């Protein structure tokens, strides 16, 4: 399909090492990542029309770290900059919308998370509904386990099915040089693990990861100037559900994912490859169904969140993994998914395509 000046493409990206514990601050993780993405696009920092990042100060516990992070951009003379307290995939959505306005032709989106400073089971409990959930200590593992149990009780999946998801992702992560965790683990070994929250096992939990990722977007002809094979964003949507998981009629389907996939036009053609952000292993099965993926689609060739889970970055890593596959010619039409909130509350779907 011929591209127009209203088409937006990914023309560069970079990611930091994915580590259990980085010795660097968020800004120090960001600088080589952001500047690396700009360099891959063949640009200088002065060429970027709009810059946006996604991060959360409560992860590192350092107030206004999102402001300190601006140092990584070399923001002098002053730049046009924004920030979302969301995964970098949503930062990319803001950059995409900015480009659609038509007054700039390049933008940069990043995500950064120094997760290792905090205790996720405490932190996310405090982010829940302050009246009905936080006083009960409704922690993320328990909320995920409630969704997992609902999936088992629905008869759609067994614990063995879920263990197979874990084993496949960890094996796939072996081929991903950026993965933090990878390896050959048998399904029986996984099933022999004790429950941390019945039916959730340690193997079902994502790793704790510090990391950063960035992408550079360009519009229309500019994308061809910068990149031999631009990765065109042909669909982009995100939807959110009620914040209380008890108000969702069925935890085994992700209605917001279904709507986002529909909005992004996922079904308008075959999907060669999908990168899905499933923080907890079993959620991959719910998401596959809600995204409407066929058995022909390769899912999480990168290992997904099981391989590395830098919170505020993992969704953007899915976009990068899908974009890499298109640039490499391993796929021509790919889907990237990101999520946020308890039990897959909010979901984003991005459709990426290469030129035939």
């Amino acid at each position, binding site marked *: 399909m011929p591209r127009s000046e209203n088409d937006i493409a990914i023309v560069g990206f970079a990611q930091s090492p994915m580590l259990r*514990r980085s010795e660097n601050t968020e800004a*120090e993780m960001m600088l080589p990542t952001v500047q690396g993405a700009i360099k891959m696009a063949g640009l200088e920092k002065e060429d970027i029309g709009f810059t946006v990042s996604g991060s959360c100060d409560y992860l590192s516990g350092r107030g206004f770290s999102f402001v300190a992070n601006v140092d990584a951009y*070399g923001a*002098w003379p002053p730049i046009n900059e924004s920030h979302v307290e969301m995964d970098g995939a949503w930062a990319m959505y803001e950059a995409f919308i900015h480009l659609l306005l038509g007054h700039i032709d390049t933008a940069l989106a990043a995500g950064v998370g120094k997760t290792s400073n905090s205790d996720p089971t405490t932190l996310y409990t405090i982010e829940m509904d302050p009246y*009905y959930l936080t006083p009960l200590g409704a922690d993320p593992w*328990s909320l995920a386990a409630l969704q997992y149990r609902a999936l088992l009780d629905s008869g759609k999946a067994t614990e063995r099915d879920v263990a197979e998801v874990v084993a496949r992702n960890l094996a796939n992560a072996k081929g991903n040089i950026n993965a933090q965790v990878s390896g050959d683990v048998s399904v029986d070994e996984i099933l022999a693990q004790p*429950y941390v929250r019945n039916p959730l096992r340690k193997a079902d939990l994502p790793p704790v990861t510090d990391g950063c990722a960035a992408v550079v977007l360009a519009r229309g002809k500019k994308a061809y100037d910068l990149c031999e094979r631009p990765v065109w964003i042909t669909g982009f949507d995100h939807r959110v559900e009620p914040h209380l998981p008890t108000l969702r009629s069925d935890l085994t389907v992700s209605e917001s994912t279904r709507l986002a996939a529909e909005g992004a036009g996922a079904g308008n053609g075959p999907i060669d490859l999908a990168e899905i952000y499933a923080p907890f292993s079993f959620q991959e099965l719910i998401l596959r169904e809600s995204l409407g993926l066929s058995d022909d689609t390769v899912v999480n060739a990168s290992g997904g969140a099981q391989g590395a889970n830098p919170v505020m970055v993992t969704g953007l890593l899915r976009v990068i993994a899908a974009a890499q596959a298109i640039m490499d010619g391993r796929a021509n039409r790919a889907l990237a998914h990101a999520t946020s909130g308890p039990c897959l509350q909010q979901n984003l779907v991005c459709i990426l395509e290469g030129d035939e």
Partner: protein
Amino acid sequence: MTDTSYDMEPFHLQFPFTRSLGSTMSTFFSALAEGQIIGVRIGDRVVAPPMEYDPETGADAGSEWVKVGPKGTVGTWTWVPEPTRLHPVQEPFAFAFITLDGADTPILHAVKASEDQLAAGLRVEAQFKTGDDVNGRIDDIVFVPASDPSPSEGAGEAYTAPAEPEVQMMDAFCDLVYVDNFAPATREWAAALMQGRLFGRRCPKCDRMIIGANPMCSVDGIFLGDGAVVELEGTGVVSNFTVITPTPYPGQKETEPFVRCSIMIDGADAVIGQQEIVGVPASEVRVGMRVAIEWAPEGERNVDDLGNGNHGATAGAVRGWRPTGEPDEPAENYVERMM
């Protein structure tokens, strides 16, 4: 890099919240304190616990209160084998979705039972705290297996709320614990301070001298390596200052007005902030005043308050900056300077 040998001391970020509940939740928690669980009728269904708005449309949910429970039926559940300090039960327990009799949506709550009792369909009932144990919070109840599975009496009947519900506020103490680590540049800066040294890094691109626990030029967006390090003399100029009249708060040690300065160290292009002035009263401090660093004696130096990214600046290694008595630099050289 998995080196955690440079971890900082644990840091507690605490918020002693007192939340106002609003009309819907004050009605709910006041009823709960009296031993009655309620929901709100929204269209053709009863949402319990009640919401202020229809979760499907966002419209005002109104105040058609309905008695629900105290018995209900477990849907999905999980088992917490090792409760944390945040959990309402300090022995192994279950979390479950419980659809209370008379309600159409479940409540998430804790169930005290044995793990092998848990299954979808289990009948449970609320146990209410009494007397001084009542907090007006959601943890005023906990669920246990129902002694009698028969339907709850009165469930589904209308509930008449008092005009002024008794429970209007809720205390919620939030305590987050962090363990950050000293970044490499912070460790180098800390070591220098302990030795009574100051250094900067000169950017090869813009030629600016950057100081402190900062490994990068934030103008050019590049890292400045070890080769860029330049030792600095401990002299400089007050480029800006403020006089602070202390207000009492936990941790405040000052009782009299005090001054905090930005110092432009000779040879540097970025100021060092939050510095003390010694030897003259706050009223005599002025922009352009030449000062020299006064290190704490070697055995008394510490970097306990030093954080990453120049937080804490010179920390406990420096007593302050003493005016040298030299003629002032022209103040107009500094008035437009922000950093």
